[in-house]
């Protein structure tokens, strides 16, 4: 039995980067065959759980399988002298990963920039002499027509008509409520198998609880330990967090 902290992945590229980092792989020499299988296992789990956004992951899984197949094919006959080296089928994927890393890095720098800026506070609602007591009226508005109002509404409606590509799954059970449920169950400090937390519950309950556990793990509030055979996993509170503290953190 070994302990992992299970990150919640933003997208398929993050999952791939996670594998690369976890196994300390050379990004220019990714063992695609192995990674593809593991990636697919993850996608199957997502499908099983009916997690949202699985389509994005499926697409990359297909790309990986395609590369795997290409790498298994016998090499074409040696190229004549004037031809270039055959292109590594992984090249495009690697370039994409690296490009993504650049923006991840840029996002981190932007975040630092925002943090510095947040140290500087701008003014609240300003007051002038004579504002004492009496409320200030609202600022004047630029003219806007009823037509523009309707137009705005139509845009909302149009947006809704688009196929919901990446919407948050709506269930009767909210992830937030299930986070409270999980933390309440773990309050005594004992680890519990996930199966026990959800035994006899509806599908909606299981999914929302699973998502809640992932979120708690991401926030570092619970540990997840895989059980041998990987058929279930143990969930354990990280430290003695009371529900009150959890509320504050939420």
């Amino acid at each position, binding site marked *: 039995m070994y302990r992992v902290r299970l990150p919640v992945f933003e997208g398929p590229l993050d999952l791939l980067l996670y594998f690369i980092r976890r196994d300390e792989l050379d990004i220019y020499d990714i063992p695609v065959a192995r990674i593809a299988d593991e990636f697919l296992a993850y996608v199957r789990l997502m499908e099983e759980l009916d997690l949202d956004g699985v389509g994005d992951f499926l697409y990359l899984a297909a790309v990986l399988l395609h590369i795997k197949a290409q790498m298994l094919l016998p090499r074409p006959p040696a190229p004549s002298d004037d031809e270039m080296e055959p292109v590594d089928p992984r090249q495009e994927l690697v370039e994409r990963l690296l490009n993504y890393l650049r923006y991840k890095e840029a996002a981190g720098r932007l975040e630092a920039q925002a943090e510095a800026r947040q140290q500087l*506070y*701008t*003014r*609240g*609602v*300003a*007051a*002038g*002499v*004579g*504002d*004492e*007591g009496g409320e200030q*009226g*609202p*600022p*004047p*508005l*630029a*003219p*806007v*027509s*009823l037509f*523009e*109002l*309707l*137009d*705005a*509404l*139509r*845009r*909302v*409606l149009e*947006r*809704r008509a688009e196929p919901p590509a990446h*919407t948050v799954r*709506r269930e*009767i*059970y*909210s992830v937030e*409520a*299930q986070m*409270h*449920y999980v933390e*309440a169950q773990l309050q005594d400090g004992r680890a519990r198998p996930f199966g026990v937390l959800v035994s006899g*519950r509806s599908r909606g*309950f299981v999914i929302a609880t699973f998502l809640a556990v992932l979120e708690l793990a991401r926030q570092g509030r619970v540990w997840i330990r895989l059980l041998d055979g990987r058929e279930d996993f143990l969930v354990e509170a990280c430290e003695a967090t009371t529900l009150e503290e959890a509320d504050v953190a939420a």
Partner: protein
Amino acid sequence: MSQPERNGTAATPLMQGIEALLFVADAPLSDEELATLWERAYGTRPSREEITGAIEALNRVYEETGRVFRIHRWGGGYRLATVAFVSPLLQYYKQQETKLSQTLLETLAIIAYRQPITKPEIDHIRGVNSDYALRRLQELELIEVKGRSDTIGRPLLYGTTPRFLEHFGLNSLDDLPELPELQQLLESPEIQHEHLRLLYSLDSEQNEASE
């Protein structure tokens, strides 16, 4: 314990702290509140006399160095406000018109057609959190709180104001043009279901979780 360091000749740390708090505040702060905020940050509680003294000193420095604001005592608290002689200039600033952004227009349209309506319902229709838009629209006095829903959690109900009618040249809400697509959407089973979910989900979650 780190207090604001002494910076320049005229300002003590307490003066600087009070100035900073009054600068960012959007309502008067009482001696009590100033003392408590200071205590929370630095562990010592300034007396009422120290606070009064610091405020007098600040106003003196503002006067001497030509600042265009003073600290006033209004409604039992202190507030920074501009001096009268700059008001002709400020008037021109305040007359600048605020243009409603797309976000605000969308939120306003939903409220106009669906009032009274709760924030979760607006969020659901727009697919995003409407906190900011609701706050802005209230500041602009285009919407207001009309009461609370009777449902669980008793969320606030929003509706439009007389200023809204005036601004769009409407006599009453009955003059809003009909929008068949909207009616369709609102009556769709999905929205009805969501409406019910928002009203009753908390209840069923609590029941389930406490089983």
